[in-house]
């Protein structure tokens, strides 16, 4: 009996230790769909995710900037990721969400087609962005490989950077 108990304890220790090492290496992402592709951003760069609310158009801005909206008293820009990525603009559906991302003091809301899931990805499974995309200009931070799919990790800093 005690041998069995010992085994279990050992096993638990092992798995615990294993978890520890994993936590160090794992990155947590939130995945979402824009167009046909799945993208993700680090979970810590997300302030909140809300259902679509009304916004106000701001003139003299590129088409992908839908305008500004009121998030509990703060006026926050709203950016349509579909048109930011050069995809055809689509009507908002039941699944459409605003992801409010932040980087330091910069905050903006992004319209996405649909959320997928929170992703835990070991760091070693994250590869660099394809070489054909120049590293500085690109909005892609890297590519996460999972068993059955590939997730593009976006650079939040770049998304929040004004480029007009």
């Amino acid at each position, binding site marked *: 009996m005690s041998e069995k108990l010992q085994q279990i304890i050992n096993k638990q220790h092992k798995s615990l230790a294993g978890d520890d090492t994993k936590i160090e290496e794992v990155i947590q992402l939130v995945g979402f769909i824009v167009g046909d592709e799945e993208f993700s951003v680090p979970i810590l760069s997300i302030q909140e995710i809300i259902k679509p609310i009304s916004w106000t158009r701001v*003139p003299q801005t590129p088409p992908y900037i839908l305008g*500004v909206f009121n998030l509990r008293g703060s006026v926050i820009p709203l950016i349509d990721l579909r048109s930011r990525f050069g995809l055809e603009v689509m009507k908002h559906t039941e699944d459409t969400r605003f992801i409010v991302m932040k980087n330091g003091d*910069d905050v903006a809301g992004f319209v996405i087609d649909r959320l997928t899931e929170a992703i835990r990805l070991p760091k070693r499974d994250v590869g660099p962005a394809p070489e054909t995309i120049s590293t500085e200009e690109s909005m892609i931070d890297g590519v996460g490989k999972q068993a059955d799919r590939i997730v593009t990790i976006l650079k939040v800093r770049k998304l929040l950077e004004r480029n007009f």
Partner: protein
Amino acid sequence: MDEFQEILQDFLIESFELIEQLDQDLVELESRPDDLDLLNRIFRVAHTIKGASSFLNFDVLTHLTHHMENLLNMARHGDLEIEPNVMDVILESIDLMKALLVRIRDSGEDSGLEISGCVARLDAVANGETGAPAEAPKVPEPEPVAVVAAAKSDDEPDYSAMSDAEVEAEIERLLAVRQAEDAAKRSVKHESKPQTEEEIDYENLSDAEVEAEIERLLAIRQAEDAAKRAAKGGSSAPAAQPASVPEPKVQPAPEPKAAPAPVAASTPPPVPAAAPKPAAAPAPRKTEPKEDGENRGGAAVEQTIRVDVKRLDHLMNLIGELVLGKNRLIKINDDVEERYEGEAFLEELNQVVSIVSLVTTDLQIAVMKTRMLPIGKVFNKFPRMIRDLSRELNKKIELEITGEDTELDKSIVEEIGDPLVHIIRNSCDHGIETPQVRLAAGKEETGTIRLKAYHEGNHIVIQIIDDGKGLDIEMLKSKSVEKGIITEKEADMMSEKEAFGLIFRPGFSTAAQVTSVSGRGVGMDVVKTNIEKLNGMIDIDSELGQGTSMKLKIPLTLAIIQALLVGVQEEYYAIPLASVLETVRISKDEIYTVESRSVMRLRDEVLSLVHIGDIFEVERVFDNNEHAYVVVLGLAESKIGLIVDSLVGQEEIVIKSLGEYLKGIEGIAGATIRGDGGVTLIVDVAALMQMAKSVKSTVGQENNEKKGRSGSKNSASDYCVMIVDDSKTDRTIMRKSIEPLGITLIEATDGVEALNILKQGDHNFDAMLIDIEMPRMDGYTLAAEIKKYNKYKNMPLIAVTSRNGKADRMRGVESGMVEYITKPYSPEYLMNVVKRNIKFNEGL
């Protein structure tokens, strides 16, 4: 260390406050060199700073202030006359003192600035070298310092007389003799005064003999000082003399109060007996506070507390949120009122809402007031500036300041300084003429610049008026044409006010040459930009030869403002009310087109117009209104008419920034959150006026454009009609009837669905066929809903129904249907009705 820092901070704050007052006092001193009050005050500043800096180990500063104190002390005791050249040295030393204080503030130490030159000059003046050589010998010599001064200056006049011009020496000598006589006469007068004083003393004596004794001694001492002072006053003294007469009278009263304070019995002998310097230090302290107290009454009792501006800003932000909450509450209250009319709880809700809104408004005003500063803070530096400028430009200029107590927000006080400096400089340089010219023009030799501040509603008005040569409109125009700022044609068309406005154009300058004061054509441009930043207005008035008046009208605060909400199509914008002069409703016929710009006649003015939709790229779908609203905007010195679709009303709004990402969008000053929680953009009037110049106006061309649009239907399928009916059969019948035309048909099964299709805006519908009886939303309601959309206001709605009562028809017309077709109908009939309503072009 922290404690030291704290003391240092206090020291710096106090010093800068003292210095601010100092500049003004010094300039005043020059015109009233005998004002003992002023002298005492100035002396006290030097003394206070010296004391504190020595305690804080700022040796350089201590050294400098010590010498200043010396000099001022002599002046205070009448051993030195305040002349312009003495003043120059004093002002120089004060500038140096300021520089030192700034250094201390920035780096924490006072080294690195060369003060020895200034100290030497101070000493030189103190010793009478550059001061008043001729008068020095006449100084009675009750004290060692004066003896030295006298001795030194005794030598001086000889040298100067010999080396320079003998005539001058002669004049000086004569003057000196004359002054000596004057002095003698005056001291005789004074001798009688101490006696009257003594009489007053005897009255006091009944109270306390010791005090009376001090009193008497002090009075004598004062009389001596006054005599010395009189002796030096020279020719300017007679005027000042009467002023000094009341002085001794004033003194006795306060003196008894002062004396007991520093341990009365023990001090009397040293006060009068001691050499003037040690005595001087305590003396002003005693007399000053008393006089302050007398003049200002409760000022000393007033309790103040220093608060970090950041905390006030934070408080202001919180109030802003509260105001938004209040707006929202009011809106909800209105909605609730509408829905539950007559219910008992409404009354209660109403009361609560009005109390909350009242308190919020009061709170906002209270916090705003804590941020208010008197504009005197800014005005204080101008006397000194005028003095320097008039010396530099060889003009005689007097500055009159009124309303320096007028208060306005701290942030505005900070912004207003620069524009005022430029305007006043401009007035000195270009406005006021030289004394010769003025005399020739039959004006007084001395020019006057008046600086006025007063409140006007929610604004503060600052007026700068000079009695100089005024603005020459023809000259302004020709200069502007010359510099390529405007074309000759523009110059011809300009009104007087517009021509005055030319002085604000960048690059404009009337000065023939660039001086250190002006002529670069930058200054007034800065004025305009800064005033615009504050949402202020500038109004210039000028009469050639009589002078110029410039009126700056600035809102009291920046964070929470009154705004006019306007609508254009489906969008709303907030325009700061401070920039709105008026709103007018005009018919489209009143809009004229002049050289491809829209203009209108507003009373006796021609106002250029711009449509808000053109500025903010609003898609104008329908605009068939015969009337338009024009919001007349005024900013700085320009005006423009902004055409909007509707006026929503006035509301208090809190300005919020659009954030880093959307910063600097042209024409948008920020955003605010409305009562319904939506975001409304705030118009940047200054930018809008700029944009209006380049925007191609479409106001007059709407109709053509619309014709062009309908003409742009190149094929039958470009026409689009929606069929709304709950019965599949009916829809099919309608489809079959119209299909031969080849136009696009969209179907909806009820009102709700139809409305959704409209909202999506995927199609541009030319007409709608609507059944009246439908589930969820019937035809009448649908029609009424559709008419709420600006975009679809003019879309023909055709009722197709089996109801044929007269009342039904009436209801149809009321809800906005243009045609009423009763079932059954022939396919041809329906087709013709549709064709007529969509203006179908058979040629396609």
